């Protein structure tokens, strides 16, 4: 098994009408053994910007700490929050710094910019950005996620419908993957509120 499959993960983000949703699974494993069933993969950078880190869990935690550090310094200097596009470039640069000894993570970045237009992007472990207008996926279940999202996604969904779609997409995909699952964690972000929900899925 490759190093990306050591812990197992699944992260997906989708764009709706003036809102976005980001979801992840909750399993943390060591190869085939399940260690924890409530592992957090989606981290908050600021009120309107979230990052989901799939791949090796230790690198995800370290990368998150480094990003929070950089963002806090930015807040002190600029006296405002970072825009999602800027943050994506920051993540990309940080990952490419380690070009020949990378962080084994694939981030999924989702945020609302100043005009409350949703922004999502993903990148590989070396920082190659992939911007999308509809959905982005990463993790060991990414192949299933691509298929399911492609068939379930519709543009301009309202927030509740977006929540249903992303939940079904996540749960169906992780059911077909041994290394991810044990429920889901969904964050639905609109210009006025953030709703965080936990999904109950198959516990195997």
């Amino acid at each position: 098994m490759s190093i990306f499959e050591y812990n197992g993960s699944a992260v997906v983000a989708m764009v709706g009408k003036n809102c976005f949703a980001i979801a992840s699974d909750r399993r943390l494993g060591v190869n085939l053994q399940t260690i924890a069933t409530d592992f957090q993969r989606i981290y908050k950078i600021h009120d309107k910007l979230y990052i989901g880190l799939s791949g090796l869990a230790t690198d995800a935690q370290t990368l998150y700490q480094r990003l929070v550090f950089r963002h806090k310094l930015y807040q002190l200097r600029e006296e405002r929050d970072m825009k999602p596009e800027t943050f994506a470039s920051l993540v990309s640069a940080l990952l490419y710094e380690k070009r020949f000894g990378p962080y084994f993570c694939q981030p999924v970045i989702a945020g609302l910019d100043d005009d409350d237009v949703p922004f999502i992007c993903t990148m590989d472990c070396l920082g190659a950005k992939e911007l999308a207008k509809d959905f982005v996926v990463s993790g060991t279940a990414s192949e299933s996620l691509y298929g399911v999202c492609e068939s379930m996604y519709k543009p301009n969904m309202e927030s509740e419908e977006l929540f249903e779609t992303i939940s079904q997409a996540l749960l169906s995909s992780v059911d077909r993957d041994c290394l991810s699952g044990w429920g889901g964690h969904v964050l639905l972000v609109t210009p006025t509120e953030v709703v965080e929900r936990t999904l109950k899925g198959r516990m195997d």
Partner: protein
Amino acid sequence: MDLHLNAPYCMGTIVGVTYDDGVVLGADSRMTIGMLVANDSVSDKITQLTDKVYICRSGPAAVLEFVSDYVRNILDQQTIQFGQPATVKATANLVRLFSYKNTNAIQMGQMGMIVGGWDKYEGGQIFAVAQGGTILKLPYAIDGSGSSGIEGFLDRAWKEGMSKDKAEKLVVKAVSLAIASDAASGGAVRTVTINSDGVRKNCYPPDSLPLCDDKRRRTKTKKTTTTRTERRIDAPKP
């Protein structure tokens, strides 16, 4: 180890225990291709070899299906020749011989089988046939990728002379524990109970398993709605 990663494997978890009157065999129902779940709820890892002898299979699916068919063929001929069903010991021996003679040819990874059944000479018996062809007659046996997690549990929980219901509950509990901790085990739990009266098969769907709602390893979860107020700090005007 040369794993054919595009071939289906039924690694999972298999369990066999003896009780006062016979044996209970149990298995999960997950079949995987690499780390993709090929079949999660309907695969049957407990196959019939003769009337009252069943085999639990764990390992490369193709090889094990062949072993079952091959041994069943020989046993059918043997039943006709001897005029009575084959004993558990004879069946286990045939499985063991196949495994032993073809160890080098089967380059597909770990293969473990549990042969269990009832015959009129020795009653209920469990034989574990491990990788390479070792045969062990045991009061209870486990194999498969999820078995390492339940070794200790079964050592503690199995008692001599259990009743049929207790034995079946024990098997279901053991396989559920393995499903909860192993990624390659999952789905439903199938059991086959074999005794002097006959064979009874059961299937416990995933929702009914004792640990399907595992709250052991979770922090409290709740739905939180944060209403954000506008909090923008504008850059100072020049």
